């Protein structure tokens, strides 16, 4: 099973990835996460404008047989959600690093330093 970990992203121990561009952070689930979940059939995302806290839940991703919470990697405000996933949740399986879930405007830059490097995340996957 391939477990691809792109070098340009940051990660969380909850198997999410974060792309940092200025104060905008794009969040998705990793290849490892999608392979563990199996066929993803439903994604529930927050409303644009929702305030998120680092470590708090912001939605769920459901496979045929399971429901998993999604955790916000940082504190901030939801500025966009990926509407395509409503009709095509399987995209999270097919292209996990392109199938972003939400974009957050980061309000506490210190949160960014808590995120894992690709090397750090690789260790989490090996545990």
């Amino acid at each position, binding site marked *: 099973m391939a477990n691809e970990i792109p070098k340009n992203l940051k990660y969380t121990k909850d198997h999410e990835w974060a792309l940092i561009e200025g104060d905008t952070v794009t969040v998705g689930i990793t290849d490892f996460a999608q392979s563990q979940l199996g*066929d993803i059939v*439903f994604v529930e995302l927050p409303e644009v404008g929702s305030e998120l806290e680092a470590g708090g839940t912001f939605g769920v991703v*459901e*496979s*045929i*047989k399971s429901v998993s919470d999604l955790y916000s990697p940082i504190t901030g405000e939801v500025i966009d959600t990926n509407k395509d996933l409503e009709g095509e949740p399987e995209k999270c399986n097919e292209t996990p690093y392109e199938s972003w879930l939400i974009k957050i405007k980061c309000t506490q830059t210190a949160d960014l330093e808590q995120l894992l490097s690709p090397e750090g995340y690789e260790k989490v996957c090996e545990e």
Partner: protein
Amino acid sequence: MSDLLETSLSSRHQDLGAKMAPFAGFNMPLQYSSVKEESKAVRESVGVFDVSHMGEFFVEGEDAIKFVDYMLTNDFASAELQKAVYSPLCREDGTIIDDLIAYKLGDKKVLICVNAANIAKDYTWFEKHVGDFNCKLTNQSDDFSLLALQGPKSEEILKNLEVFPGQEFVYYSACEHSCSYGDLILARTGYTGEDGFEIFGSHESIQKLWDDLMKAGVVPCGLAARDVLRLEVGYPLYGHELSDDWTPLDAGLKWTVKMTKPEFLGKKFLEGYKPRYRLVKLSLDKGIPREGYEILNEQEEKIGWISSGTMSVALSKGIGIGLVEKDKFPENKVFKIKVRANAFAANYHAKAFVAGGHK
């Protein structure tokens, strides 16, 4: 993990890359390739499940049929020889100990197949009552492996392997059958709603058969796909729709309680029983019902709960079975399901979600 029991096919599952999970004390394959692909294979072609965790009891002797008929709520006595009967197993107060299939292999020989989680509980119950009858009860669960070969092409597969007993072997037939794999017990039963067979045999026989099924291209299927398939056709699962705390009449199983029988365990109580619950089948256009979610009426008052839920592969939407308090059952059949913070309108299904193709 060391406390978990393994089936005789465990190493084969691991070689196939199955995702394993504990189930009823056994280390069982949850899925191999994908739940979607596996359930599709069973609906459209053929798949095989290792269900060796299930329990096998034999009842042999003059009173074998009489004893089993007394223990079960369904009518076993009138079933023809070499037929299988599905039935709940109840206490005197009507509560459900388990649901099972009894196979009338001969006029003095019955096989009973029970849920893995209930083997000890069921055996104790049978043992407690067998003394009044002239027959012998044995628990042979450790000696048998069991495969469920399911799907429209399963007859063809068994014919090719020269295991098919003949054209008269129709739905719910059961027989002992000797073939190149050894002495097997075959039944045209299953838990998917499709045509298919359950095949009991020694560990060695079943290992050999499994290997040949794999060579023949039969898709190995895990317990996750099994659960999706049984839910799509509305079959109950012990611990979900059936429980120690209510009766078959609460769970849509009135057809398995035969009041016309002269006597059976639980009859006295069930005759005068007014059911507390009513089983409902609901689907959602958005979201997926999950076990424990609340079922609400139009006014969004709680009237019941989802006992099993999943994403249906055949329908591509969320489906669930639930129990609703009988006196709160809404005449307008307007139901909602509480999914996290939202109450979603649910579709009420009078029939199974999927018809299934069994003959």
